[in-house]
Protein backbone atom coordinates (compact mmCIF):
# COMPACT_ATOMS: atom_id res chain seq x y z
CA UNK A 1 0.00 0.00 0.00
CA UNK A 2 2.70 2.44 1.06
CA UNK A 3 4.94 1.27 -1.73
CA UNK A 4 2.22 1.77 -4.31
CA UNK A 5 1.59 5.25 -2.96
CA UNK A 6 5.29 6.07 -3.16
CA UNK A 7 5.69 4.78 -6.70
CA UNK A 8 2.55 6.59 -7.79
CA UNK A 9 3.89 9.81 -6.32
CA UNK A 10 7.22 9.26 -8.06
CA UNK A 11 5.45 8.67 -11.39
CA UNK A 12 3.55 11.90 -10.81
CA UNK A 13 6.80 13.78 -10.17
CA UNK A 14 8.37 12.29 -13.30
CA UNK A 15 5.40 13.37 -15.39
CA UNK A 16 5.45 17.00 -14.22
CA UNK A 17 7.67 18.52 -16.96
CA UNK A 18 5.38 16.97 -19.60
CA UNK A 19 2.37 18.99 -18.58
CA UNK A 20 3.87 22.01 -16.83
CA UNK A 21 5.25 24.16 -19.58
CA UNK A 22 5.78 27.18 -17.34
CA UNK A 23 9.55 27.47 -16.80
CA UNK A 24 9.09 29.60 -13.72
CA UNK A 25 6.96 26.95 -12.03
CA UNK A 26 9.58 24.36 -12.85
CA UNK A 27 12.19 26.59 -11.27
CA UNK A 28 10.12 26.77 -8.08
CA UNK A 29 9.84 23.00 -8.03
CA UNK A 30 13.58 22.52 -8.48
CA UNK A 31 14.27 24.93 -5.63
CA UNK A 32 11.72 23.18 -3.44
CA UNK A 33 13.30 19.84 -4.37
CA UNK A 34 16.75 21.04 -3.30
CA UNK A 35 15.27 22.04 0.05
CA UNK A 36 13.50 18.71 0.36
CA UNK A 37 16.83 16.89 -0.06
CA UNK A 38 18.36 19.13 2.60
CA UNK A 39 15.40 18.49 4.89
CA UNK A 40 15.64 14.72 4.35
CA UNK A 41 19.28 14.81 5.41
CA UNK A 42 18.48 16.94 8.45
CA UNK A 43 15.73 14.49 9.38
CA UNK A 44 18.28 11.71 9.68
CA UNK A 45 19.93 13.59 12.55
CA UNK A 46 16.92 15.35 14.03
CA UNK A 47 14.29 12.69 13.51
CA UNK A 48 16.23 9.50 14.01
CA UNK A 49 19.04 10.29 16.45
CA UNK A 50 17.17 13.19 18.08
CA UNK A 51 20.04 15.65 17.66
CA UNK A 52 19.11 19.12 16.41
CA UNK A 53 21.73 20.41 13.99
CA UNK A 54 21.13 24.14 13.62
CA UNK A 55 24.14 24.50 11.37
CA UNK A 56 22.97 22.27 8.62
CA UNK A 57 23.59 24.90 5.93
CA UNK A 58 27.30 24.50 6.65
CA UNK A 59 27.27 21.09 4.98
CA UNK A 60 25.08 22.41 2.19
CA UNK A 61 27.48 25.34 1.66
CA UNK A 62 30.59 23.17 1.81
CA UNK A 63 29.12 20.94 -0.88
CA UNK A 64 28.18 23.98 -2.95
CA UNK A 65 31.54 25.75 -2.67
CA UNK A 66 33.65 22.63 -3.14
CA UNK A 67 31.79 21.62 -6.25
CA UNK A 68 31.84 25.15 -7.64
CA UNK A 69 35.56 25.72 -7.00
CA UNK A 70 36.69 22.40 -8.43
CA UNK A 71 34.60 22.77 -11.56
CA UNK A 72 35.92 26.31 -12.10
CA UNK A 73 39.48 25.55 -11.07
CA UNK A 74 41.32 27.79 -8.60
CA UNK A 75 44.73 28.88 -7.45
CA UNK A 76 45.43 29.83 -3.91
CA UNK A 77 48.42 30.63 -1.71
CA UNK A 78 48.67 27.93 0.90
CA UNK A 79 49.43 28.52 4.56
CA UNK A 80 52.95 27.20 4.16
CA UNK A 81 53.75 29.61 1.36
CA UNK A 82 53.46 27.53 -1.79
CA UNK A 83 50.86 28.05 -4.44
CA UNK A 84 48.22 25.48 -5.16
CA UNK A 85 46.82 25.51 -8.65
CA UNK A 86 43.90 23.31 -9.60
CA UNK A 87 42.57 23.32 -13.12
CA UNK A 88 38.85 22.98 -13.93
CA UNK A 89 37.59 19.48 -13.17
CA UNK A 90 34.63 17.68 -14.72
CA UNK A 91 31.38 18.65 -13.03
CA UNK A 92 30.48 15.14 -11.89
CA UNK A 93 33.88 14.77 -10.19
CA UNK A 94 33.51 18.16 -8.49
CA UNK A 95 30.04 17.19 -7.38
CA UNK A 96 31.31 13.94 -5.82
CA UNK A 97 34.18 15.80 -4.15
CA UNK A 98 31.62 18.19 -2.64
CA UNK A 99 29.72 15.24 -1.18
CA UNK A 100 32.91 13.71 0.23
CA UNK A 101 34.13 16.95 1.78
CA UNK A 102 30.73 17.66 3.33
CA UNK A 103 30.75 14.11 4.70
CA UNK A 104 34.19 14.71 6.21
CA UNK A 105 32.90 17.90 7.82
CA UNK A 106 30.03 15.83 9.23
CA UNK A 107 32.52 13.35 10.64
CA UNK A 108 34.48 16.18 12.24
CA UNK A 109 31.36 17.70 13.81
CA UNK A 110 30.18 14.27 14.90
CA UNK A 111 33.53 13.55 16.54
CA UNK A 112 33.96 16.81 18.41
CA UNK A 113 30.40 16.88 19.58
CA UNK A 114 30.17 13.21 20.51
CA UNK A 115 30.17 14.03 24.18
CA UNK A 116 27.67 16.83 24.04
CA UNK A 117 23.97 16.51 23.50
CA UNK A 118 20.94 18.73 23.30
CA UNK A 119 21.63 22.43 23.66
CA UNK A 120 25.40 21.99 23.41
CA UNK A 121 25.16 20.10 20.16
CA UNK A 122 22.95 22.89 18.82
CA UNK A 123 25.52 25.52 19.82
CA UNK A 124 28.41 23.64 18.24
CA UNK A 125 26.56 23.22 14.96
CA UNK A 126 25.51 26.89 14.86
CA UNK A 127 29.09 27.98 15.53
CA UNK A 128 30.38 25.67 12.84
CA UNK A 129 27.99 27.17 10.29
CA UNK A 130 29.01 30.70 11.28
CA UNK A 131 32.69 29.82 10.93
CA UNK A 132 32.22 28.35 7.47
CA UNK A 133 30.26 31.44 6.47
CA UNK A 134 33.04 33.74 7.69
CA UNK A 135 35.59 31.70 5.77
CA UNK A 136 33.53 31.96 2.58
CA UNK A 137 33.13 35.69 3.16
CA UNK A 138 36.74 36.53 4.00
CA UNK A 139 38.96 34.12 2.12
CA UNK A 140 38.57 36.26 -0.97
CA UNK A 141 41.53 34.69 -2.80
CA UNK A 142 39.72 31.41 -2.88
CA UNK A 143 36.00 32.14 -2.66
CA UNK A 144 35.80 35.65 -4.14
CA UNK A 145 34.03 36.58 -0.89
CA UNK A 146 30.88 38.65 -1.38
CA UNK A 147 31.67 39.04 -5.09
CA UNK A 148 30.55 35.42 -5.42
CA UNK A 149 31.72 32.61 -7.68
CA UNK A 150 30.09 33.10 -11.07
CA UNK A 151 29.80 31.26 -14.39
CA UNK A 152 29.82 27.90 -12.69
CA UNK A 153 29.42 25.19 -15.32
CA UNK A 154 26.12 23.30 -15.27
CA UNK A 155 25.81 19.53 -15.10
CA UNK A 156 26.82 17.75 -18.27
CA UNK A 157 27.35 14.27 -19.61
CA UNK A 158 29.71 13.25 -22.33
CA UNK A 159 31.22 10.29 -24.08
CA UNK A 160 34.66 11.75 -24.82
CA UNK A 161 35.13 12.72 -28.45
CA UNK A 162 31.76 11.42 -29.57
CA UNK A 163 28.91 13.11 -27.83
CA UNK A 164 28.31 15.74 -25.20
CA UNK A 165 25.30 17.32 -23.56
CA UNK A 166 25.28 20.26 -21.18
CA UNK A 167 22.19 20.84 -19.13
CA UNK A 168 21.25 24.50 -19.10
CA UNK A 169 17.49 24.02 -19.23
CA UNK A 170 14.98 23.62 -16.43
CA UNK A 171 13.68 20.22 -17.47
CA UNK A 172 16.99 18.31 -17.35
CA UNK A 173 17.87 20.02 -14.08
CA UNK A 174 14.50 19.03 -12.71
CA UNK A 175 15.26 15.39 -13.50
CA UNK A 176 18.75 15.63 -12.01
CA UNK A 177 17.19 17.01 -8.84
CA UNK A 178 14.66 14.19 -8.86
CA UNK A 179 17.35 11.55 -9.37
CA UNK A 180 19.50 12.88 -6.52
CA UNK A 181 16.39 13.12 -4.34
CA UNK A 182 15.40 9.51 -5.06
CA UNK A 183 18.93 8.22 -4.40
CA UNK A 184 19.08 10.18 -1.12
CA UNK A 185 15.69 8.82 -0.12
CA UNK A 186 16.76 5.25 -0.81
CA UNK A 187 20.04 5.68 1.10
CA UNK A 188 18.21 7.10 4.12
CA UNK A 189 15.46 4.49 3.93
CA UNK A 190 17.88 1.59 3.82
CA UNK A 191 19.89 3.07 6.67
CA UNK A 192 17.00 3.68 9.04
CA UNK A 193 15.39 0.32 8.30
CA UNK A 194 18.61 -1.53 9.03
CA UNK A 195 20.13 -2.65 12.29
CA UNK A 196 22.01 0.66 12.37
CA UNK A 197 18.78 2.62 12.12
CA UNK A 198 17.30 0.64 14.98
CA UNK A 199 20.34 1.56 17.05
CA UNK A 200 19.91 5.25 16.22
CA UNK A 201 16.27 5.21 17.30
CA UNK A 202 17.21 3.36 20.48
CA UNK A 203 19.69 6.03 21.44
CA UNK A 204 17.15 8.74 20.69
CA UNK A 205 14.60 7.08 22.94
CA UNK A 206 16.79 6.20 25.88
CA UNK A 207 20.50 6.68 25.61
CA UNK A 208 21.62 5.00 28.87
CA UNK A 209 19.46 2.01 28.04
CA UNK A 210 20.84 1.87 24.51
CA UNK A 211 24.35 1.78 25.95
CA UNK A 212 23.35 -0.95 28.37
CA UNK A 213 22.25 -3.23 25.55
CA UNK A 214 25.65 -2.71 23.97
CA UNK A 215 25.11 0.00 21.37
CA UNK A 216 28.20 2.04 20.64
CA UNK A 217 26.46 5.41 20.88
CA UNK A 218 29.31 7.54 19.56
CA UNK A 219 29.79 5.41 16.48
CA UNK A 220 26.18 5.66 15.42
CA UNK A 221 25.93 9.39 16.08
CA UNK A 222 29.02 9.96 13.95
CA UNK A 223 27.70 7.69 11.22
CA UNK A 224 24.40 9.56 11.13
CA UNK A 225 26.23 12.89 11.04
CA UNK A 226 28.42 11.77 8.13
CA UNK A 227 25.56 10.46 6.00
CA UNK A 228 23.42 13.46 6.81
CA UNK A 229 26.19 15.91 5.95
CA UNK A 230 27.07 14.11 2.73
CA UNK A 231 23.47 14.29 1.50
CA UNK A 232 23.27 17.96 2.45
CA UNK A 233 26.51 18.41 0.48
CA UNK A 234 24.87 16.75 -2.53
CA UNK A 235 21.99 19.21 -2.24
CA UNK A 236 24.56 22.02 -2.17
CA UNK A 237 26.32 20.74 -5.28
CA UNK A 238 23.01 20.41 -7.05
CA UNK A 239 22.16 23.99 -6.15
CA UNK A 240 25.53 25.28 -7.36
CA UNK A 241 25.38 23.71 -10.78
CA UNK A 242 21.76 24.65 -11.25
CA UNK A 243 21.86 28.30 -10.13
CA UNK A 244 25.47 28.61 -11.40
CA UNK A 245 26.41 31.26 -8.92
CA UNK A 246 27.31 30.78 -5.29
CA UNK A 247 27.93 33.41 -2.64
CA UNK A 248 28.27 33.35 1.17
CA UNK A 249 24.51 33.78 1.45
CA UNK A 250 24.14 30.02 1.01
CA UNK A 251 25.20 29.87 4.66
CA UNK A 252 22.29 32.02 5.87
CA UNK A 253 20.72 30.79 9.09
CA UNK A 254 17.24 31.17 7.61
CA UNK A 255 17.88 28.23 5.29
CA UNK A 256 18.61 25.95 8.22
CA UNK A 257 15.46 27.20 9.92
CA UNK A 258 13.47 26.51 6.77
CA UNK A 259 14.74 22.93 6.70
CA UNK A 260 13.93 22.48 10.39
CA UNK A 261 10.40 23.76 9.78
CA UNK A 262 9.96 21.34 6.89
CA UNK A 263 11.09 18.39 9.00
CA UNK A 264 9.04 19.29 12.08
CA UNK A 265 5.80 20.10 10.27
CA UNK A 266 6.07 17.13 7.94
CA UNK A 267 6.85 14.77 10.78
CA UNK A 268 10.31 14.13 12.13
CA UNK A 269 11.45 10.57 12.26
CA UNK A 270 9.28 9.55 9.32
CA UNK A 271 10.61 8.98 5.84
CA UNK A 272 7.86 10.91 4.08
CA UNK A 273 7.72 13.77 6.60
CA UNK A 274 10.44 16.02 5.17
CA UNK A 275 9.10 15.50 1.65
CA UNK A 276 5.58 16.53 2.61
CA UNK A 277 6.80 19.44 4.76
CA UNK A 278 9.31 20.46 2.10
CA UNK A 279 6.75 20.55 -0.66
CA UNK A 280 4.27 22.53 1.45
CA UNK A 281 6.74 25.13 2.62
CA UNK A 282 8.71 25.18 -0.60
CA UNK A 283 5.72 25.80 -2.83
CA UNK A 284 3.36 27.63 -0.45
CA UNK A 285 5.03 31.08 -0.78
CA UNK A 286 4.65 30.91 -4.56
CA UNK A 287 1.01 29.88 -4.42
CA UNK A 288 0.31 32.69 -1.96
CA UNK A 289 2.03 35.19 -4.21
CA UNK A 290 -0.74 34.62 -6.75
CA UNK A 291 -3.38 36.25 -4.64
CA UNK A 292 -1.89 38.35 -1.85
CA UNK A 293 0.72 41.00 -1.20
CA UNK A 294 4.14 40.17 0.22
CA UNK A 295 3.29 41.19 3.81
CA UNK A 296 0.20 39.01 3.89
CA UNK A 297 2.20 36.13 2.39
CA UNK A 298 4.60 35.92 5.29
CA UNK A 299 1.83 36.34 7.83
CA UNK A 300 -0.04 33.44 6.21
CA UNK A 301 3.11 31.36 6.05
CA UNK A 302 3.63 31.90 9.78
CA UNK A 303 -0.01 31.21 10.58
CA UNK A 304 0.02 27.91 8.67
CA UNK A 305 3.16 26.90 10.51
CA UNK A 306 1.72 27.73 13.93
CA UNK A 307 -1.51 25.93 13.08
CA UNK A 308 0.35 22.77 12.11
CA UNK A 309 2.53 22.82 15.22
CA UNK A 310 -0.49 23.49 17.46
CA UNK A 311 -2.89 20.95 16.01
CA UNK A 312 -0.56 18.32 14.61
CA UNK A 313 2.39 18.50 17.00
CA UNK A 314 3.90 15.28 15.70
CA UNK A 315 3.70 16.51 12.12
CA UNK A 316 1.47 15.95 9.15
CA UNK A 317 2.58 12.45 8.15
CA UNK A 318 2.14 10.76 11.57
CA UNK A 319 -1.24 12.49 11.95
CA UNK A 320 -2.43 11.24 8.56
CA UNK A 321 -1.15 7.73 9.26
CA UNK A 322 -3.04 7.63 12.52
CA UNK A 323 -6.21 9.00 10.92
CA UNK A 324 -5.97 6.33 8.22
CA UNK A 325 -5.43 3.51 10.72
CA UNK A 326 -8.29 4.63 12.90
CA UNK A 327 -10.65 4.77 9.94
CA UNK A 328 -9.59 1.31 8.91
CA UNK A 329 -10.07 0.02 12.42
CA UNK A 330 -13.55 1.47 12.78
CA UNK A 331 -14.49 0.12 9.38
CA UNK A 332 -13.26 -3.33 10.39
CA UNK A 333 -15.19 -3.04 13.61
CA UNK A 334 -18.43 -2.12 11.85
CA UNK A 335 -17.89 -5.01 9.41
CA UNK A 336 -17.77 -7.33 12.37
CA UNK A 337 -20.94 -5.86 13.80
CA UNK A 338 -22.76 -6.35 10.54
CA UNK A 339 -21.75 -9.98 10.13
CA UNK A 340 -23.00 -10.50 13.64
CA UNK A 341 -19.80 -11.98 14.98
CA UNK A 342 -19.11 -11.08 18.56
CA UNK A 343 -16.59 -8.29 18.39
CA UNK A 344 -13.84 -9.54 20.64
CA UNK A 345 -12.48 -6.36 22.10
CA UNK A 346 -8.86 -6.35 21.11
CA UNK A 347 -8.45 -2.86 22.39
CA UNK A 348 -8.13 -3.47 26.08
CA UNK A 349 -6.94 -0.36 27.76
CA UNK A 350 -3.53 -0.93 29.26
CA UNK A 351 -3.41 -0.42 32.99
CA UNK A 352 -1.34 2.37 34.46
Amino acid at each position, binding site marked *: MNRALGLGFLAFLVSIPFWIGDQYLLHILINAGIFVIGAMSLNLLLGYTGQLSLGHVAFFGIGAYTSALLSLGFDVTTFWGGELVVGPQPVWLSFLAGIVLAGLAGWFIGRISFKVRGAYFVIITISFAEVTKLVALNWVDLTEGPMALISIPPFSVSIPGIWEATFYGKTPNYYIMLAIGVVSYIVIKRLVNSRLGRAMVALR*ENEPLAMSVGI*DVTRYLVLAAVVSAAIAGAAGGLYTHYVRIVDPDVFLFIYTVTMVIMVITGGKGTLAGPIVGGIIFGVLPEILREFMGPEAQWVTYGAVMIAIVMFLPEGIVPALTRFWERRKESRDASDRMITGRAASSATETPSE
Partner: protein
Amino acid sequence: MLAIEGLSCRYNKITAVKGVSLEVKEGELVTLIGANGAGKTTTLRALSGLVRDLDGRIVFEGEDITGAPPRDIIARGIAHCPEGRRVFPYMTVEENLEMGAYLRQTGNGINSDMERVYEQFPVLKERRKQAAGTLSGGEQQMLAIGRALMSRPKLILFDEPSLGLAPNIVQKTFGIISEICRQGTTVLMVEQNAYGALGMCHRSYLLESGEVVLTGTGSDMLDNPHVREAYLGG
Protein backbone atom coordinates in the same frame (compact mmCIF):
# COMPACT_ATOMS: atom_id res chain seq x y z
CA MET B 1 32.64 -16.33 38.13
CA LEU B 2 32.77 -12.64 38.96
CA ALA B 3 35.17 -11.01 41.38
CA ILE B 4 35.45 -7.33 42.22
CA GLU B 5 38.60 -6.29 44.06
CA GLY B 6 38.96 -2.92 45.72
CA LEU B 7 36.61 -1.09 43.36
CA SER B 8 36.42 2.70 43.74
CA CYS B 9 34.40 4.99 41.51
CA ARG B 10 34.27 8.74 41.36
CA TYR B 11 31.82 11.21 39.89
CA ASN B 12 33.97 14.28 39.48
CA LYS B 13 35.38 14.72 42.98
CA ILE B 14 32.85 12.69 44.87
CA THR B 15 33.78 9.12 45.55
CA ALA B 16 30.63 7.03 45.34
CA VAL B 17 32.22 3.62 45.87
CA LYS B 18 35.21 3.15 48.18
CA GLY B 19 37.14 -0.05 47.83
CA VAL B 20 34.31 -2.52 47.39
CA SER B 21 35.27 -6.17 47.02
CA LEU B 22 32.74 -8.86 46.33
CA GLU B 23 32.37 -12.17 44.63
CA VAL B 24 29.63 -13.98 42.75
CA LYS B 25 29.95 -17.70 42.09
CA GLU B 26 28.37 -19.49 39.19
CA GLY B 27 24.71 -20.30 39.75
CA GLU B 28 24.37 -17.97 42.72
CA LEU B 29 21.82 -15.30 43.37
CA VAL B 30 23.66 -12.52 45.17
CA THR B 31 22.10 -9.28 46.31
CA LEU B 32 23.59 -5.93 47.11
CA ILE B 33 21.50 -4.05 49.64
CA GLY B 34 21.76 -0.65 51.23
CA ALA B 35 20.15 2.75 51.45
CA ASN B 36 19.88 5.42 48.77
CA GLY B 37 23.31 6.72 47.82
CA ALA B 38 25.20 3.78 49.29
CA GLY B 39 26.86 3.12 45.93
CA LYS B 40 24.89 0.07 44.84
CA THR B 41 23.89 1.33 41.40
CA THR B 42 27.35 2.79 40.78
CA THR B 43 28.88 -0.62 41.46
CA LEU B 44 26.59 -2.21 38.89
CA ARG B 45 27.24 0.52 36.36
CA ALA B 46 30.97 0.04 36.79
CA LEU B 47 30.49 -3.67 36.18
CA SER B 48 28.77 -3.13 32.88
CA GLY B 49 31.22 -0.49 31.71
CA LEU B 50 28.93 2.53 32.08
CA VAL B 51 31.17 4.19 34.68
CA ARG B 52 34.69 4.73 33.43
CA ASP B 53 36.47 6.65 36.18
CA LEU B 54 37.38 3.77 38.46
CA ASP B 55 40.14 2.05 40.39
CA GLY B 56 40.41 -1.59 41.31
CA ARG B 57 39.90 -4.75 39.35
CA ILE B 58 36.86 -6.48 37.89
CA VAL B 59 37.47 -10.08 36.87
CA PHE B 60 34.88 -12.09 34.97
CA GLU B 61 35.54 -15.76 34.26
CA GLY B 62 39.22 -15.30 34.93
CA GLU B 63 39.64 -12.32 32.64
CA ASP B 64 40.19 -8.72 33.64
CA ILE B 65 37.34 -6.61 32.23
CA THR B 66 38.12 -3.41 34.13
CA GLY B 67 37.41 -0.40 31.95
CA ALA B 68 36.16 -2.42 28.96
CA PRO B 69 33.42 -0.68 26.91
CA PRO B 70 29.81 -1.83 27.50
CA ARG B 71 29.50 -3.73 24.23
CA ASP B 72 32.52 -5.92 25.05
CA ILE B 73 31.11 -6.68 28.46
CA ILE B 74 27.73 -7.67 27.07
CA ALA B 75 29.45 -9.77 24.44
CA ARG B 76 31.19 -11.66 27.25
CA GLY B 77 27.83 -12.56 28.74
CA ILE B 78 26.92 -9.91 31.30
CA ALA B 79 23.50 -8.35 30.74
CA HIS B 80 22.38 -5.25 32.58
CA CYS B 81 18.76 -4.62 33.45
CA PRO B 82 18.87 -0.95 34.44
CA GLU B 83 16.65 0.83 36.93
CA GLY B 84 13.96 3.38 36.18
CA ARG B 85 12.74 3.78 32.62
CA ARG B 86 13.47 0.31 31.45
CA VAL B 87 12.17 0.08 27.90
CA PHE B 88 12.31 1.94 24.58
CA PRO B 89 8.82 3.45 24.81
CA TYR B 90 8.06 4.01 21.12
CA MET B 91 9.38 0.68 19.93
CA THR B 92 7.11 -2.32 19.95
CA VAL B 93 7.53 -5.12 22.47
CA GLU B 94 9.06 -7.27 19.75
CA GLU B 95 11.54 -4.57 18.73
CA ASN B 96 12.54 -4.10 22.35
CA LEU B 97 13.33 -7.79 22.59
CA GLU B 98 15.30 -7.64 19.36
CA MET B 99 17.37 -4.82 20.83
CA GLY B 100 18.40 -7.19 23.60
CA ALA B 101 20.00 -9.43 21.00
CA TYR B 102 21.60 -6.43 19.31
CA LEU B 103 25.17 -7.57 19.68
CA ARG B 104 24.51 -10.97 18.18
CA GLN B 105 25.58 -10.45 14.61
CA THR B 106 23.76 -13.44 13.22
CA GLY B 107 20.06 -14.06 13.40
CA ASN B 108 20.75 -17.57 14.69
CA GLY B 109 18.39 -18.54 17.41
CA ILE B 110 16.96 -15.08 17.95
CA ASN B 111 13.49 -16.29 17.07
CA SER B 112 13.67 -19.34 19.30
CA ASP B 113 15.01 -17.20 22.14
CA MET B 114 12.13 -14.82 21.62
CA GLU B 115 9.69 -17.72 21.73
CA ARG B 116 11.23 -18.79 25.02
CA VAL B 117 10.75 -15.29 26.43
CA TYR B 118 7.13 -15.31 25.23
CA GLU B 119 6.63 -18.68 26.89
CA GLN B 120 7.88 -17.28 30.15
CA PHE B 121 5.86 -14.06 29.80
CA PRO B 122 2.72 -14.85 27.77
CA VAL B 123 1.43 -11.30 28.23
CA LEU B 124 4.34 -10.03 26.13
CA LYS B 125 3.31 -12.26 23.26
CA GLU B 126 -0.22 -10.87 23.38
CA ARG B 127 1.17 -7.37 23.22
CA ARG B 128 4.09 -7.94 20.92
CA LYS B 129 3.01 -5.37 18.32
CA GLN B 130 2.16 -2.77 20.94
CA ALA B 131 4.43 0.19 21.77
CA ALA B 132 6.32 -0.69 24.94
CA GLY B 133 5.42 2.65 26.51
CA THR B 134 1.75 1.61 26.65
CA LEU B 135 2.45 -1.41 28.87
CA SER B 136 1.81 -1.32 32.60
CA GLY B 137 4.75 -0.94 34.95
CA GLY B 138 4.86 -4.64 35.71
CA GLU B 139 4.68 -5.60 32.06
CA GLN B 140 7.49 -3.18 31.26
CA GLN B 141 9.59 -4.81 33.94
CA MET B 142 8.92 -8.23 32.40
CA LEU B 143 9.87 -6.84 29.01
CA ALA B 144 13.11 -5.46 30.44
CA ILE B 145 13.91 -8.86 31.96
CA GLY B 146 13.02 -10.57 28.68
CA ARG B 147 15.27 -8.20 26.81
CA ALA B 148 18.16 -8.93 29.14
CA LEU B 149 17.64 -12.66 28.54
CA MET B 150 17.79 -12.11 24.78
CA SER B 151 21.56 -11.57 24.90
CA ARG B 152 21.92 -15.11 26.32
CA PRO B 153 23.78 -13.86 29.36
CA LYS B 154 25.74 -15.95 31.83
CA LEU B 155 25.28 -13.25 34.45
CA ILE B 156 22.41 -10.77 34.74
CA LEU B 157 22.70 -7.58 36.74
CA PHE B 158 19.38 -6.30 38.05
CA ASP B 159 19.20 -2.74 39.27
CA GLU B 160 16.31 -2.10 41.67
CA PRO B 161 13.81 -4.37 39.94
CA SER B 162 11.15 -3.49 42.54
CA LEU B 163 11.36 0.27 42.01
CA GLY B 164 7.99 1.85 41.30
CA LEU B 165 6.05 -1.42 41.14
CA ALA B 166 2.94 -2.41 43.08
CA PRO B 167 3.66 -4.82 45.99
CA ASN B 168 2.08 -7.86 44.34
CA ILE B 169 4.06 -7.19 41.14
CA VAL B 170 7.24 -6.90 43.23
CA GLN B 171 6.58 -10.38 44.61
CA LYS B 172 6.02 -11.68 41.11
CA THR B 173 9.18 -10.03 39.79
CA PHE B 174 11.27 -11.53 42.59
CA GLY B 175 9.75 -14.90 41.77
CA ILE B 176 10.75 -14.55 38.13
CA ILE B 177 14.30 -13.56 39.07
CA SER B 178 14.63 -16.59 41.37
CA GLU B 179 13.35 -18.76 38.54
CA ILE B 180 15.92 -17.34 36.11
CA CYS B 181 18.64 -18.23 38.60
CA ARG B 182 17.25 -21.75 39.07
CA GLN B 183 17.39 -22.20 35.30
CA GLY B 184 21.12 -21.61 35.40
CA THR B 185 21.78 -17.91 34.94
CA THR B 186 23.81 -16.28 37.67
CA VAL B 187 22.23 -13.15 39.14
CA LEU B 188 23.60 -10.09 40.90
CA MET B 189 20.79 -7.87 42.09
CA VAL B 190 20.80 -4.44 43.66
CA GLU B 191 17.78 -3.81 45.84
CA GLN B 192 16.54 -1.33 48.41
CA ASN B 193 13.79 -3.63 49.51
CA ALA B 194 16.08 -5.44 51.94
CA TYR B 195 13.46 -7.81 53.28
CA GLY B 196 12.49 -9.15 49.88
CA ALA B 197 16.05 -9.27 48.63
CA LEU B 198 17.41 -11.14 51.65
CA GLY B 199 14.56 -13.62 51.56
CA MET B 200 15.34 -14.79 48.04
CA CYS B 201 19.13 -14.67 47.76
CA HIS B 202 21.92 -17.10 48.49
CA ARG B 203 24.28 -14.45 49.78
CA SER B 204 24.17 -10.72 50.24
CA TYR B 205 26.41 -7.73 50.74
CA LEU B 206 25.35 -4.66 52.70
CA LEU B 207 26.73 -1.37 51.41
CA GLU B 208 26.91 1.78 53.50
CA SER B 209 28.45 5.02 52.18
CA GLY B 210 30.27 3.21 49.43
CA GLU B 211 31.75 0.42 51.54
CA VAL B 212 30.82 -3.18 52.23
CA VAL B 213 30.00 -3.31 55.92
CA LEU B 214 28.48 -6.75 56.19
CA THR B 215 28.20 -9.91 54.18
CA GLY B 216 26.65 -13.30 54.71
CA THR B 217 23.89 -15.65 53.64
CA GLY B 218 20.42 -14.20 53.28
CA SER B 219 19.12 -15.79 56.47
CA ASP B 220 22.18 -14.75 58.49
CA MET B 221 21.70 -11.19 57.35
CA LEU B 222 18.01 -11.29 58.21
CA ASP B 223 18.96 -12.24 61.77
CA ASN B 224 21.70 -9.65 62.08
CA PRO B 225 20.77 -7.00 64.68
CA HIS B 226 22.27 -4.13 62.66
CA VAL B 227 20.34 -5.10 59.55
CA ARG B 228 17.13 -5.58 61.54
CA GLU B 229 17.59 -2.22 63.20
CA ALA B 230 18.49 -0.15 60.15
CA TYR B 231 16.81 -1.85 57.21
CA LEU B 232 13.99 -4.05 58.40
CA GLY B 233 12.36 -1.65 60.83
CA GLY B 234 13.45 -3.28 64.11
